[in-house]
């Protein structure tokens, strides 16, 4: 995050061209078309995690792949709109806090850590409490996985 000015001089591999948009119009158009579908599949995998194969980690990786494709093709500056670099690690930390907060809410309401049965969601039968409880922690996992991967890419690029 704190890209030091001497980093680019030290390592010739990290020249500015990696941050620039691509010259190829094919890559540009293709990535614009493909990315929404990648993000959609990512969301699909994430929303299926609590009752079928899928889940936060896989969904988060797919969502990150969508964002990184835009970072690679449109350049760092343009793709800031979809995920600003300075927000990545903060939101990732927020994701972990969502997970821990869900667990702690159960503790404070009389259950054990992560015991979804005790979550304060009104009007739900116990099965659905567990159902939505897992969904809730999957939100945290997805956000953290996605944003950490984007943060690693941005950090290596030095922006």
């Amino acid at each position, binding site marked *: 995050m704190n890209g030091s000015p001497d980093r680019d001089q030290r390592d010739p591999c990290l020249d500015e061209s990696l941050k620039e948009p691509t010259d190829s119009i094919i890559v540009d158009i293709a990535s614009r078309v493909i990315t929404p579908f990648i993000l959609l599949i990512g969301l699909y995998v994430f929303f299926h995690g609590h009752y079928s194969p899928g889940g936060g980690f896989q969904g988060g990786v797919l969502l990150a792949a969508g964002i990184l494709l835009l970072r690679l093709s449109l350049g760092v500056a343009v793709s800031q709109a979809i995920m600003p670099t300075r927000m990545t690690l903060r939101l990732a930390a927020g994701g972990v*806090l969502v997970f821990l907060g869900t667990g702690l809410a159960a503790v404070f309401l009389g259950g054990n850590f992560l015991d979804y049965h005790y979550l304060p969601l009104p009007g739900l039968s116990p099965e659905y409490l567990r159902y939505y409880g897992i969904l809730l922690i999957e939100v945290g996992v997805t956000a953290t996985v996605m944003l950490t991967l984007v943060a690693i890419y941005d950090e290596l690029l030095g922006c």
Partner: protein
Amino acid sequence: MIGAEAPVFIPLAFLVSAMLALLLGVISRPLAYVTAIVGSAAALFFSVRGLQAVLADGPISYHLAGWMPPLGIELYLDPLAGFFCVLLSGITLLVMVYGRHSVQHETPRKEVPFYSLAMFLVGGLSGMVMTGDLFNLYVFLEIGALSGYGLVAIGDKRAPVSAFRYLTLGTLGAAFFLLGVAFIFISTGTLNMADIARVLLVSQPTTPIMLGMALIVVGVGLKMALFPMHAWLPDAYTHASSTATALIAPIGTKVAAYILLRVLFFMADPEYVRHDIHLTDVVGYLGAVGIIWASVMAITQKEMKRMLAYSSVAQVGYIALGIGLASPLGFIGAVLHVINHAFMKACLFLVSGSFRLRLGHSSIPKLDHGVGRVLPWTSAAFSIAAISMIGLPPTAGFFSKWYLALGSIEQSNWVFVAVLLISSLMNAVYFFRILERMYLKPRSASDDGKEAEMPQQAAPANNEAPGSMLVPTLVLAAGVLVLGIMNAWGISHIIEPMIPEGL
């Protein structure tokens, strides 16, 4: 109420503050420091309450998400685990308080990731201490290890290289451990440690179990820096920032030693480990060789942090020697040495950090008696910790060596007795040479001409380290003395309830 929930609150206090440090650090960097202190203080509070509850009412078993073990993950707090949690959060609190000026000075602009990773590391270690599930242990081991690599990498210019070396060997250790867990799992069909202990008691020991135990010992030995698997340690400790070293050195390798105690004496049948596969003998003799080897290496070092790092390898050897004795006296010696060494080594590394802040270096040949005048209290703390490392009464170091020696004599293991005696003399060699320079060597006699560069040249003024650094150092030094004087009470009230039945 809080006592019963303590097992889950201790790691959570660390993990939540790791995340909050990252978020609040965006607003202002000092907030990350405050968060780390509040988190460690909360964890210390829960640990103390947990230990009180355990000593009063017996072990606490906490079932995560309400699933019953052996299927669910169990957090298990018994006297041994509770004691380790108190030690761990207490040292963390002191080191975090110390960090304010030192981290700013040694790794400027990296405070936020530093405190976040430090909290993550301790969160992982506290989870390792309490978990009752072998695979969960691996998960916490990796949480602690990965943040440890990051913490080592935030250091001087050569830190990333040593962090990478640490990462390579640490990952290898984790892989061995996981392989061992897999062997145990296919033989017993369960991952819960208490359940494995029950299965192992009634079943005939098989080759996979033997192999699994051996692999776990190798993997944990790598994490613990047991000789000859200590190669990552000196570099990592030397190049990491002083605060990071003061955090990793006292508790990181000790938690690995704790895992050895847990696996060899609680999970497996001590009789089986000792007489059938001689695993404790291997650990003990490796520890004994490590003590001598690392003491020789420590004598040859010129840089104080590097010398202390080699001394850490030697001290881990003492703990391994106590485990190797596999007797109640050896157990007491090992556990007592864990706490003593945590206090002594944290104190010594904090002193080396204060030297780096005030003198600009921590190189032994450049020290002279000006140090004793410029930093009188810091030097006094160093002297107490050094005397304790050598093992002179009434400091804490004497008593753990005393119990180790008693245990060795009880088993007529004269090799261990000789190692203990020789190594104490070697400790005296490498610590007295610093004490001599600090108090006796006149400034003019310094022949390397380096003192011209030093800021205070003619009459060294009292330039003591700032309060936030001095107070934790002195508390640890006082702790060394208190631990030494109170050791009889501590052993009969805290350590004796820990000794497993089969030992």
